Every structure is written in C-alpha cells, then in structure tokens.
C-alpha cells in the first residue's frame, strides 16, 4: 500500500509539473487612450502612432507576455452625416510615425461598425471584442516592440464621423 500511495503522489506531482509554470502566470489589463478625432469625405486623415511602452502595465510584463487574451477598441463614434456610415480601424505594422494617408500593407484591424445618421454609438468592451478581424497582426505587434500605427477609415461613399473617449484595451497573459 505504501508503494501505491507513493505512486499516486508521484502521479499527482507529474500532473502539476505537466502544466509547466502555470502557477506563476496571470492576466493583466493594459489600456491606451486614443485622441478624439474627426474625419470626413475629403477631410483630414486621422492616423495615430501607438507606443505601448508608455504604459506601465505593458512595460512591467513586456518580456514575459505569452498570450494575448482579449482585444477591444472602446469609445463613442458619432456620425454627423445625414446617411448611415460605417467606421473601421486599420493597423500599420512596424510604423515609426503616425500614418498620414492610406498605407500599402496596412491590415484591417477592427470593424466595420455601422452608425445611423446623426447618431452616436457607444462601443463597449464586450461588443468591441467581437469586432476584431486582424487579431494576429496586433498580437504580433504587442509581442514585438509595441509600436505601431492606427488609422480610421470609412468604407461608406460619404461620411462625416467623429470619435471621442476612445481607447485600446489589451488583456494579456504573462509568466515569470
């Protein structure tokens, strides 16, 4: 019976060891505020250089990130036009400055979301998480140097859209 007990104890330890360093990992939330923006047909192009290294939570765990669990772009999107319009966000991997126009090689990151005429849509954390279409590109940037470009786009023929209170929310797993 003693041998059996020892064997079962070893099995239990093996089960725990098989999970690697699972006990020393955790999930962390990093948020990046985005500036208010307005873009319209023939108007100003809205690009932003995102530098995640300016966020403490990201810097604290940058070298230990194992997985990106959750991605969201939240905020208010207002359609100032008289017809419904769609809004999208595109990512420019490896950018070193804010995009000033449509960039070849950019990847659609998020959206589209439809905003009715003369209305404001509040994009919450839950809805936004399901609108990501370029997850892997952003994951690569997050696990890379954390610097990339974003720009707003609208697939509608005419548009007049403003955004406010916008932020990028990233949930990642890091291990020690």
């Amino acid at each position: 019976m003693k041998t059996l007990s020892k064997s079962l104890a070893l099995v239990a330890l093996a089960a725990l060891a098989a999970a690697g360093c699972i006990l020393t990992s955790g999930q962390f939330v990093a948020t990046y505020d985005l500036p208010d923006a307005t873009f319209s047909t023939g108007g100003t192009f809205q690009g932003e250089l995102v530098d995640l290294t300016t966020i403490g939570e990201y810097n604290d765990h940058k070298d230990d990130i194992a997985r990106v669990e959750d991605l969201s772009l939240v905020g208010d999107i207002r359609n100032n036009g008289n017809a419904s319009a769609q809004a999208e966000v595109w990512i420019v991997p490896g950018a070193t400055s804010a995009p000033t126009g449509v960039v070849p090689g950019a990847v659609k990151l998020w959206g589209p979301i439809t905003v009715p005429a003369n209305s404001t849509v509040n994009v919450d954390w839950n809805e936004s998480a399901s609108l990501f279409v370029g997850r892997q590109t952003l994951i690569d940037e997050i696990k890379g140097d954390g610097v990339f470009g974003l720009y707003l786009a609208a697939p509608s023929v005419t548009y007049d859209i403003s955004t406010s209170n916008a932020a990028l929310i990233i949930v990642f797993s890091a291990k020690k």
Partner: protein
Amino acid sequence: MKRILVLALAGTLLCASLAYAGNIGLGAFGGMSVPVLQADQSQGGVYGLRAPVSLTPLFTVEPFYSASTLGDKTENIGGVDYTREGSDVTTFGANLLLSTTGPMRFYPYVGIGSVKFKRSGQDESMTSYNFGLGLGFTPAPKFSLDIRAELQAAAKDQVSRKMGNLTVGASYALFSFN
C-alpha cells in the same frame, strides 16, 4: 495528459482488486469562484455534479462537471467606465481523493479535466488542473456532506487562468459493490 490519466486509472483499479465493499454515489455542490491574478474577471458562483466512486477506504475516484459564472470587471479609462462581462466556465474532469476514514474525513485531492471559457470574443478550451483539501462528514448512513477549498488552473501555452473555488456539497451512496 493521457499517460497521467491511464496511470491514475491503473492505480485505482489496482486498489479495487483489494477486498473492499466499494460504492458509487451521486452528489451536488455549489459555492464561490474567485479569479486569481486575472485582472479581467471578478468573483462569481460555481456549481456542479460529482459521482464519487469509492474503491478502497483510502481512495476515491470522482468524475465531475462544474459550471462557473465569473463576475464582470470594470476599468475606468479617461473618466469613463468600461465593463467586460465575466466568462462562463464549464469543466469536465475527474478527481482522485486520498481520504482518511471515519465519520469525519480530511482529504487532499487532485484532478484533471477539460475546461471551456466562453464570453463575447472568447470561446476556447484548455486543460484543467486542480488540487485542494476537503473536509467530509457522514451525518447519516450513505449520506455525506463536504466542504472543499481548491485551486483550479486552466492551462494553455504555458500560462493559465486560475480560480480559487470554495464549495459545499452533499452526496449519497447509490450502489455498493465488492
């Protein structure tokens, strides 16, 4: 993982060969589930079913099913609150209990299984490992009550989501066998 399961089953079957009147029971449990080091979830409830198979006075194998509803998490960003719903977590697995005997039992246990996390934008399965301590009472023949505290780790890609689960449960021995 399969090798570990086979070893665990072989060990318990070996025990079953000993002269002992074992029994098969059915039980239910419920309690609270507290995320550990998960900044995107908060405390929620957990409930489930167990089918304890007592093979020797010392060892019990216990297939189980549990469901947790983790709580929402709110982040304030630029003065605006944004809330992420908690995940619905379902686990199928089996525990191995190393129990003392008598009307009051104290037992450590380990378990392994498959766990699924589901919410908007998340639908993924992981391997579940759990270990904990239980305290059991037998207030009437065939009937037992227990209190358990365990750590559950849902592992994938060398990282895990961890929950501390505190539950109370009741089970009834339905069948006996030799």
